[in-house]
């Protein structure tokens, strides 16, 4: 299915989903910096302002805390809101509104108030932007009850998951990866939605299960292709949504292969990779033939120097060599 359709960028897949959903649902308002006439710092809202205008595309000054609170409040009061933090790093300015207000409101109001808000931001390292613009803390939100967390890795997934997110009672953290914005992939012209909590098998395999998210999916797939040539068959799984999580896809695979690695651009401590290993320990302990492995960024702020940043973040070579060692154990 994913192989059919036109080839478009990750960015454009998101724009398409937004356009279709904003046409379908007139209650959607989109708030953020530079998302109006400019069409988004990453071109992630290109063309939308022309169609929907200032009324529904609300450009703001630099005020993430306020803008995010406004979006959440609008959502509580009956609109559906998207707030674009642009860089996920800037969601930190707004985190009290996300974690204290949006995440808690449904539960605390005994289910009476929903906040159908989508918080959008792009994470990860790209072009040596340095520590302030490269964070990968999607896992923090997964540790906050009340937030759904989406981390699409392909144009196909961006579009299908965006559309689901814009119909979800929310709140949803929709976390893209800056590095992926210019990547291309096939996206069908006809409408489709991808349900939350459904993993994608990136490649089937029998020797080792590898769980990867976001940009790491692509690097892991490359490592998987290298390993295939050496006779190591890796099953690569992209959960696509961290909350809700497709635990069955992960555990079924581990039970089949008996080996596990989790690849993560976040550092390993309290990471999503750590969660995957915990699930394996709890649910697949007897199936594991070798100790599972986290392959993560080193625990340092993203250095500017390309030499240092390349050392920090898992590379195709590092993933391949660690998997090799794991399988040979």
């Amino acid at each position, binding site marked *: 299915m994913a192989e059919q359709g036109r080839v478009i960028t990750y960015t454009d897949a998101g724009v398409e989903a937004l356009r279709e959903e904003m046409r379908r649902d007139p209650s959607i308002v989109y708030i953020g*910096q*530079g998302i109006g*006439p*400019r069409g988004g*710092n990453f071109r992630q809202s290109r063309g939308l302002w022309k169609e929907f205008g200032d009324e529904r595309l609300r*450009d*703001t*000054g*630099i*005020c*993430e*805390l*306020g803008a995010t609170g406004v979006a959440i409040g609008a959502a509580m009061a009956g609109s559906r809101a998207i707030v674009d933090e642009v860089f996920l*790093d*800037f969601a930190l*300015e707004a985190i009290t509104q996300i974690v204290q207000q949006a995440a808690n409101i449904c539960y605390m109001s005994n289910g009476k108030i929903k906040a159908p808000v989508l918080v959008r931001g792009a994470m990860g390292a790209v*072009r*040596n*932007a*340095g*520590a*302030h*613009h490269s964070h990968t803390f999607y896992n923090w939100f997964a540790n906050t009850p009340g937030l759904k967390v989406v981390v699409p890795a392909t144009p196909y997934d961006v579009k299908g998951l965006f559309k689901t997110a814009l119909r979800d009672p929310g709140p949803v953290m929709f976390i893209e990866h800056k590095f992926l914005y210019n990547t291309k992939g096939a996206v069908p012209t006809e409408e489709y939605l991808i349900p939350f909590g459904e993993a994608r098998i990136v490649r089937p395999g029998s020797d080792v299960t590898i769980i990867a998210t976001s940009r790491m999916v692509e690097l892991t797939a490359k490592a998987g292709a290298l390993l295939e040539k050496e006779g190591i068959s890796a099953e690569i799984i992209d959960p696509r949504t961290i909350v809700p999580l497709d635990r069955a896809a992960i555990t079924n695979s581990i039970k089949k292969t008996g080996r596990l690695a989790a690849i993560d651009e976040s550092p390993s401590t309290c990471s999503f990779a750590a969660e995957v290993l915990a699930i394996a320990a709890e649910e697949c302990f007897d199936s594991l033939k070798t100790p599972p492995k986290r392959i993560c960024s*080193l*625990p*340092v*702020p993203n*250095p*500017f*120097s*390309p*030499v*240092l940043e*390349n*050392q*920090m973040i898992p590379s195709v070579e590092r993933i391949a060599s660690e998997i090799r060692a794991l399988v040979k154990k």
Partner: protein
Amino acid sequence: MTEAIAEQKDLALLLDYYRRMLELRLFELKVQELYRNARLPGFVHLYVGEEASGVGVCANLKPEDLIFSTHRGHGHAIAKGVPAKVALAELWGKTTGCSGGRGGSMHMYAPEYGFMGTNGIVGAPIPLATGGALSAKLRKSGQVVVGFFGDGAVNSGSFHEAVNMGSVWDLPIIYVCENNLYATEMAFSRATKNTSVASRAAAYGLPGVVVDGQDVLAVHRAAKEAIDRARSGGGPTLIECKTYRYVGHHEGDPGTDYRTKDEVEQWKKNDPIKRAAKVLLEAGLADEKKLKEVEAEVVQLMEDAVTFAENSPEPLASSVTDHVF
């Protein structure tokens, strides 16, 4: 001191200021060239057009005074005394850079020159600078602190919270807003209905002044008065420098989608370096030959900086985990 004598005294500083502004300008143009030729990694926001602000303020500071800067901070770093070659080496990701190559454009730190950092987070330096001033006051160090920020930052909560604290605690700080009319593509008048930054001072009960940010002596006078007051315990000041960036928001942004060519040209006519040169020539404080000499020296300084940075070593990959704590 009569007006005339004061003016004479200021004029005596102008050649030095001219040179300093030229340093900032030629540094940025060199960075632009290197960046466009894909020699430098990362991304950069250049200070071209805004030099009078950084120079007019920093020239009145002592080496031990502190400044906290922004994403557009190379000029502030050099104005505070960070050698051009050390700044350039940082932009090149080399070990000889002020952050050893770990920081890059938006994370340059040189406390040895009282330079407490550029910053990738808009608004963040304002509370940090306020904290620096609180510490100076508590330690009775006699230091004055300057927090630089753009017009974009004044609509953030950080500005409101920090300036209010600086004022209520009478801290030795100068808040310098470099109002270049745009935050990325967002015109200040689209972001707020009160486009006078200086008038916001009234909300916090501190003096607010507007200056022509393209006139280095005007900036100098406003800064000197504020710095002297802060140093003598008279509390903070908010200075709004009206200025303009000739270049795009960052290298890669042509800067023409949201501004007219005419607007950019008008501002270029009011260039702070050209204006300083004109005054120097008219007042007979320098002749064409002298100005050319100064320029040649600064050009050489930048060439030396390139040689230094280019030939400096890259960090060792194995050092990646150093300095986390």
